[in-house]
């Protein structure tokens, strides 16, 4: 058992579950989507990306790419949230919430890809 692989599997699955938790609910209903969950999803995704730094394998490169995609989507969602709340005068509306959640939905897809790749890698390991 490789502790590095365990840590990575843990992180990427956690990233996906947190992301799912934030994403789950009515798309335009602010009370269904908690900011702490988004925050935790961003943090865990960053950790998952850093863990793939310097991985020279092909699958490692693809995992790094998909984590980067989910970070971009989630940070995008956070930036939209911050701008809506503090920069523009609109405050939180249904449509802004919907776009935040759909951004996180994209990130969830990227996380899903990561997890699928991880499963494939594990299955191909003949040990």
């Amino acid at each position, binding site marked *: 058992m490789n502790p590095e692989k365990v840590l990575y599997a843990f992180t990427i699955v956690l990233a996906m579950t947190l992301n799912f938790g934030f994403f789950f609910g009515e798309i335009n209903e602010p009370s269904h989507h908690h*900011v*702490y969950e988004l*925050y935790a999803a961003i*943090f865990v995704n*960053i*950790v998952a990306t*850093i*863990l793939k*730094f*310097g*991985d*020279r394998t092909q699958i490692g490169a693809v995992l790094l790419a998909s984590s980067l995609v989910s970070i971009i989507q989630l940070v995008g969602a*956070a930036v939209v949230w*911050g701008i809506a*709340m*503090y920069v523009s005068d609109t405050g939180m509306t249904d449509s802004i919430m919907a776009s935040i959640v759909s951004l996180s939905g994209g990130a969830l897809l990227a996380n899903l890809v990561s997890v699928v790749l991880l499963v494939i890698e594990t299955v191909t390991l003949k040990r």
Partner: protein
Amino acid sequence: MNMVLFLILRRMRAPLLALSLVYSVATLGLTIIPGMDDQGNPWHMDFFHAFYFVSFMGTTIGFGEIPYPFTDAQRLWALVFIYITVATWIYAIGTVLSLLQNETLRRAGTEYQFRQSVRSLREPFFVICGYGDSGGRLVDSLERRNIHAVVVEIRQERIDALILGDYTMQIPRLCGDASDPQNLILAGIESPFCAGVVALTDQNQVNLHIAITSRVLNPDAKVICRAEAHYIEANMASFGTDCIIDPFDTFAQRLSLALDNPCLFLLDSMLRDNPGWSTLEAANVAEGRWVLCGYGRLGEAIHKIFAKKGVDVTVVEPYLDRVGGLANYVIGLGTEAHTLNEANIAGAVGVVAGTDNDSNNLSIIVTAKEINPDLFTVVRQSNHFNRRLFEKAEVNIVMASSTVVASKIKTLLVNPMVDDFLSLAHAQSEEWADALNHRLNDLTPDDRPPVIWELSIIEQDAHALVTALDRELSIKLQYLLADHTDRSNELSTIALLHDSNDGSFILPSGETTLEWGDRLLFVGTGQSRSMMAWTLQNETALEYVMNGTVAPQSTLGKLLFAN
């Protein structure tokens, strides 16, 4: 480069994880800890402001407590995390700095740089292994003629000397062992632009290894090697090394030429070494006995040449086992008068100081001259730094092995036709050589060394000429030697060799007709070279030197001046 990047990223994992962990905990804490707004109502900091605060706190910029003054609980949290974030930053920056210091990484970095600069060479280049005295001279002269060189040298201080050298071209260099094929591959030995490999290291075995490596990896590249032992030379020759240079044999041959045909020797030195050559004079040597001090590799080579010519030689050598088999020897260094007297220096015509110690050699020459001022002196110079001493010592011939090797290779690489010319010239008489020496001397009135260059009659080098040949005009050599601004003047240029389908002709006359693909060797001033380039490339200039007039070029001109 990939390896370097991966290494950096891998090493940066821990500090980056630490940084993101500390930042996220600090931000999270600020959003959880209750605060108070300006009206005294309970208030929770949002992520936006929390992250903003943590960002400037972590980098110790410190814009203050925003948006509202902190409660003591928030201050306590900030107090703890100021120290934690600063410590984490120091850890991260320290890791980056130690990565930059890392020897493996720096080595990988310089190798990467080297490979990139070799790859970016899009012109023929030579790989020079060994940047010692002769390697340095070779790189100098290649660079002066705008030919690219790539240097592989094992000693860092020589690489430093190369970096500090005053070169206008960038010379890629690698500090590494040239006997490692990996380093030669890095140096671009497999590149289609690699024109040749020159092995000039101090080690015979390394030179041999370089020769065989280049033969295997790039059979098209010229391989030129220095070798100082005959069995190594035989080995190199066995797999087709293009040129093997033994500095001692080469010098012995040159010495023999100097003694037999002083004028030819002078011509040879002028064309090979290209010094400010009005200072050179052909020296005639009387027939008689020679004293040879030092019977090492050089001494042996010279002794062999003398024996072939039937010249009497007295050898002076401190080690009996080296000279035991010779007919005529004296045991001793030769630096003291009594040893030289024992060798009867007073009755000799010449002395060769051929030990491997420069100060001993100088001492031999000075002592011998005191006893017999009429001696012809030949001295071996091992160390490049003693150049000035030997220049001042009024010696007839100085043999510096680095110069001998460098000038021979230089001719081979830069002007291979000079070698053809000289081998043809060796069949000529002394008077012929003397006359040519005088013509060469008169070429350049000042001390500026003349330029030697080769010309191939091909489209790229002689556009106008090739166009004229296509129109079936007969081109004579004298056209090229005429001044294109006033054709009654001749350029200060001598055509040395004409290489055509019918064979090679030495000192071709002006009436020689040129054909496509012919090659010519010229010597002359730098100015005359650029003047000739005009005639070669510009159709109007060529027309003028051929006919003395220029036909109108424009449509209007043709109408007006048609006759």
